[in-house]
């Protein structure tokens, strides 16, 4: 809400020593937050004065234009007292007129500096100004002609044009709809600014009593439209100009002056908060009715849009049909125009929820709708209509018609009962019952007091005040939020981070310590991303939860995998010149379940456990995933020698490092899954449970995402790993007897996984085996085509004795024998 400060002061007296900064600070601290202060003339510097045109000689030019060579009396503002010679291209003024003159040295909006300059054969020393040049409006190309008697030549013209006006913009929260009116702002100034007094309510006026002589109105839906007031004026002069003060004020409020009749309704809306609609009465046929629309009905609104109406929309009709979307926007057929001489003034109270829904349904955001949907004082319909009539008769030459239609009665606010101690109990401020009563009365409540119990009836302009806590807020804002003490509450001993929270940190630190960089991506995905991964049609990751209003058509769903975003991010890094990249992300993915809708539960009680369970059941699974992608070098080339490019084992190794940090050991086996290389993808298992995959990416995937060949990736269900993380690790017991080291080289078919051979050796070696490590893989002539040799280092040790040669040979042979049995391994001689 924007308003000139002087307008507020029309309704409330503010001590002269209260600065604008102080006044707006107080408004901010009581709930109407200052957004900005500006002056229309803020961009104008230098001499801008009243001038009287003395002479005006038209001089036709070769280019077909006619300029006026003028002399203008600017008093002694030019230092000489002599008339000022000025060339002017406009013609809407005459000798003797008072005009606004900017003299050399002045600067107009846009940094337009004025100096004496030669033009059209004269030295033009200044400029006679139009409204546009002074930043007062885009529509006015003509010279501003000031009313006779408004000032003397040479006098500063700024105050006459409202250029020195301070316009304040206040942020009005949904609960302070009253702040969308001068009436409401002025009232808050009175209650919150020290020394302010004498609030004059613009909606408090004697109105003529209702009668049956007015325009016939019938309201079929009194719930949707509890009050409908109709007044008419005749003999209105549609050419009558809007008085400057009205034009300036509605313009300051951010609205465009249109015509006197329209401007007056807007002016009264700003003044009282009550939206008013004016019809061309000659275009309205017969009785005006209010009802709900019927499905299929249409209306072309003032903005030229043809709208399909719904049965929930409130409409205004006449004998011709629908003539307006009640409270939201009028219809085209009864619009006031340049020929309107009779005006039907509608001042009606509308149901806020209907207004909200209709505005939302038709995507209409208007000044009227904004007020109607937040709640307007229902008791001032007559006063507002009367004020419009007054202005139309005063400035438009109209005559008020006899007859005052008032249909319905305004709804009344329900009284609220609360303990007088509640404000203190809620705020922590020391505020006694007398103060509470005084504050509530100051904001317009009527309060009855019965011991500690207060019954407060909110004023009609505060439809938002419904609960005791709403009353508390009124008291606290007047007492001052800045006076609330600062006291640290004493929480009972907490349990610290949950285990999962602590472990997630451990996972992040482990990866960061191993050279991986965490990134955060948006969780949105599109079919093209899933295609780019090469997912087959039946891949479960293609079953995505779609958004009904995605920001981008390319990513309209919640992702089931972290990889597309990670691959894009990795490629972006490469594009930025970082050729070696290792990134990871931990985030939840969304795995839809085929469930019904989530219920909308009641709010007047706690839902039952069954209701809550149904709610949670309707949500998708959202397990926490870990994804990682690397490309380029794992170790860069340097003075130490050649670098090592990342390979599949870096991806597996990173996941293993995470598992290790959680006290878990993962096993691997070959798998073929997109987006990985079918021969270089490991399935990662925790026991029998597949927790994810890691390996080198499919070459096509690298190409599609613009990544270098042989980039690697992994994705695992971190949730499973966190659940199984080892909590208490037993202290190790280790033997100090001598270790026996045995190397074994086994030749197997090239297709046999090393993991299988290792597992067989481990099992076969029995409990004397302390550790086993594969240290070499050999393929070549010595082992033959299609074969490979795997070299293991085995360490044997007993807890209680030194092993004998027999012990060692026995264990080793048992290991080799089982490997031979299970994997066809032959000991290499």
């Amino acid at each position: 809400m924007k308003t000139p400060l002087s307008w507020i002061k029309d309704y409330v007296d503010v001590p002269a020593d209260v600065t604008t900064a102080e006044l707006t600070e107080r408004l901010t601290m009581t709930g109407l937050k200052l957004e900005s202060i500006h002056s229309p003339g803020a961009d104008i510097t230098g001499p801008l004065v009243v001038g009287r045109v003395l002479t005006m000689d038209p001089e036709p030019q070769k280019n077909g234009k006619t300029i006026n060579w003028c002399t203008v009396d600017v008093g002694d503002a030019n230092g000489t007292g002599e008339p000022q010679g000025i060339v002017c291209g406009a013609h809407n003024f005459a000798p003797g007129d008072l005009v606004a003159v900017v003299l050399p040295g002045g600067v107009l909006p846009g940094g337009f500096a004025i100096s004496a300059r030669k033009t059209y054969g004269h030295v033009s020393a200044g400029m006679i100004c139009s409204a546009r040049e002074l930043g007062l409006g885009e529509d006015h190309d003509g010279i501003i002609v000031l009313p006779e008697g408004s000032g003397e030549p040479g006098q500063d013209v700024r105050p006459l044009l409202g250029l020195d006006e301070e316009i304040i913009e206040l942020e009005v929260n949904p609960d302070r709809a009253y702040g969308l009116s001068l009436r409401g702002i002025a009232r808050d100034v009175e209650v919150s600014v020290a020394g302010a007094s004498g609030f004059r309510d613009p909606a408090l006026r004697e109105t003529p009593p209702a009668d049956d002589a007015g325009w016939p109105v019938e309201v079929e839906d009194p719930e949707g439209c509890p009050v409908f007031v109709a007044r008419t004026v005749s003999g209105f002069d549609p050419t009558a100009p809007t008085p400057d003060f009205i034009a300036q004020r509605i313009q300051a409020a951010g609205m465009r002056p249109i015509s006197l009749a329209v401007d007056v309704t807007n002016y009264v809306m700003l003044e009282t908060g009550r939206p008013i609609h004016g019809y061309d009465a000659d275009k309205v046929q017969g009785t005006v009715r209010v009802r709900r629309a019927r499905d299929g009905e249409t209306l072309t609104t003032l903005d030229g849009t043809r709208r399909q109406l719904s049965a929930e929309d409130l409409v205004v009709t006449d004998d011709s049909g629908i003539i307006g979307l009640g409270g939201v926007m009028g219809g085209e057929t009864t619009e006031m125009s340049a020929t309107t001489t009779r005006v039907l003034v509608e001042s009606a109270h509308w149901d806020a929820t209907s207004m909200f829904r209709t505005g939302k349904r038709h995507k209409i955001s208007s000044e009227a709708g904004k007020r109607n949907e937040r709640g307007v004082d229902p008791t001032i319909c007559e006063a507002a209509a009367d004020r419009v009539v007054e202005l139309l008769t005063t400035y438009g030459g109209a005559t008020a018609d006899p007859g005052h239609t008032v249909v319905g009665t305004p709804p009344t606010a329900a009284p609220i009962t609360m303990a007088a101690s509640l404000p203190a109990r809620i705020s922590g401020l020391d505020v006694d019952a007398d103060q509470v009563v005084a504050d509530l009365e100051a904001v317009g409540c009527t309060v009855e007091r019965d011991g500690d119990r207060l019954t407060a009836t909110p004023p009609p302009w505060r439809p938002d005040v419904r609960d005791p806590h709403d009353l508390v807020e009124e008291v606290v804002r007047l007492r001052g939020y800045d006076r609330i003490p600062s006291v640290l509450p004493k929480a009972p001993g907490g349990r610290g981070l949950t285990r999962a929270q602590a472990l997630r940190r451990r996972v992040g630190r482990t990866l960061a310590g191993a050279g991986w960089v965490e990134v955060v991506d948006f969780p949105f995905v599109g079919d093209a991303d899933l295609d780019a991964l090469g997912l087959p049609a039946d891949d479960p990751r293609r079953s995505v939860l779609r958004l009904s209003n995605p920001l981008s058509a390319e990513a309209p769903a919640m992702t089931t995998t972290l990889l597309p975003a990670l691959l894009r991010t990795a490629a972006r890094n490469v594009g930025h010149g970082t050729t070696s990249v290792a990134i990871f992300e931990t985030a939840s993915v969304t795995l839809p379940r085929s469930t019904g809708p989530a219920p909308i539960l009641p709010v007047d009680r706690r839902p039952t456990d069954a209701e809550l369970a149904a709610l949670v059941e309707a949500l998708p699974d959202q397990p926490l995933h870990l994804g990682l992608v690397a490309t380029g070098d794992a170790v860069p080339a340097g003075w130490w020698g050649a670098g090592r490019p990342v390979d599949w084992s870096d991806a597996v190794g990173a996941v293993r490092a995470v598992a290790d940090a959680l006290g878990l050991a993962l096993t691997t086996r070959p798998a073929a899954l997109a987006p990985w290389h079918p021969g270089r993808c490991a399935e990662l298992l925790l026991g029998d449970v597949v927790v994810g995959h890691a390996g080198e990416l499919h070459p096509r995937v690298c190409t599609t995402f613009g990544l270098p060949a042989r980039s690697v990736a992994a994705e695992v269900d971190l949730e499973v790993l966190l659940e199984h993380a080892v909590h208490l690790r037993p202290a190790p017991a280790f033997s100090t007897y001598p270790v026996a080291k045995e190397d074994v080289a086994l030749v197997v078919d090239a297709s046999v996984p090393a993991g299988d051979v290792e597992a067989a050796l481990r099992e076969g070696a029995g409990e004397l085996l302390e550790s086993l490590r594969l240290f070499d893989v050999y393929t070549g002539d010595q082992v033959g085509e299609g074969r490979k040799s795997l070299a293991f280092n085995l360490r044997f040790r007993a807890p209680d004795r030194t092993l004998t040669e027999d012990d060692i040979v026995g264990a080793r042979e048992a290991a080799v024998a089982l490997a031979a049995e299970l994997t066809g391994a032959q000991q290499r001689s």
Partner: protein
Amino acid sequence: MSGPNTDYDPVEVTPLKPEEVESARDAALAAIAAASDLAELKQVRIDHTGDRSPLALANREIGALPPQARKEAGQRIGQARGAVAKALGERQAVLEVEHEERILVEETVDVTLPTDRARPGGRHPITLQSELIADIFVAMGWEIAEGPVVEAEWLNFDALNLGPDHPARTLQDTFWTEPVDHHVVLRTQTSPVQARTMLTRTPPIYVACPGRVFRTDEYDATHSPMFHQVEGLVVDEGITMAHLKGSLDHLAGQLFGAGIDTRFRPSYFPFTEPSAEVDVRCFVCRGVDSAECRTCRGEGWIEWGGCGVVNPRVLTACGVDSERYTGFAFGMGIDRSFMFRHDLEDLRPLFEGDVRFSAAFGTEI
């Protein structure tokens, strides 16, 4: 080898002549002194103390002397051999030190060579900021609560006093999942976690809820469809706005420096009543001579978040006895806090995954 010789020769043995012994000793000492490295000294040792060295030969001859001469010859030779052994030992020590020094010099490397064999890793600064905030609350005895980002409409809105026709719903541009009548949204705030907490726990409740939230904002320098929030919720007996102020002052002091506090301005949130906007004192200028301050743009204060007393309607919907308990709640942007704490003007680096950005923060902020 020479064993004890009983069959001694009565004739005087030449090598045992005092001048011969002295000469052999002097030759040995000279050779020792002249040895310039350990290898030469080793040869000197062989030549002058080995089996075939004059002093060794002389020593072997002592047994051939008549008993009365043995003592004197023994002493003479013993002294000579002792002097040689001592000189050898000393020279050995000197040469060893020299040798070690020379090796160390030869082994000198250029320690200014780069050592960047390992990739620098890093955690995302928003993760770190979230953890830092969580730690501040945990230190106060609060707990950290979490919930899903794809959330039931009822928990995101209705339970929080944001009914379907509430004007404030339009203030939060919400992502809806398909089909819309399934009433599932991307949470617009972390408040549903508060609702879940109240629904599943009994007071006293002291929790903070950091997490990702979503709004249908086009992505630019100051807006993102996804961002991070932390909310706090306390429900206990006797809780007032003073406790709210105390908690936020504490958080501000911990996050931005001792003495940094907050101020409240009246505001409106459906979830709370009374409600307040909370500003944090500018930690750069501290509100003194703010005019030139870039961080607070001359205000002395920085808009931080919203807060208030939990609306009893919310307590009721979440099964908390609103007669017995009161509560407060607050929320602020983690990304925003990070941005002004670390002087970042454009939020997009947070979500674009350039490794240079995260890596710059390492593993702690």
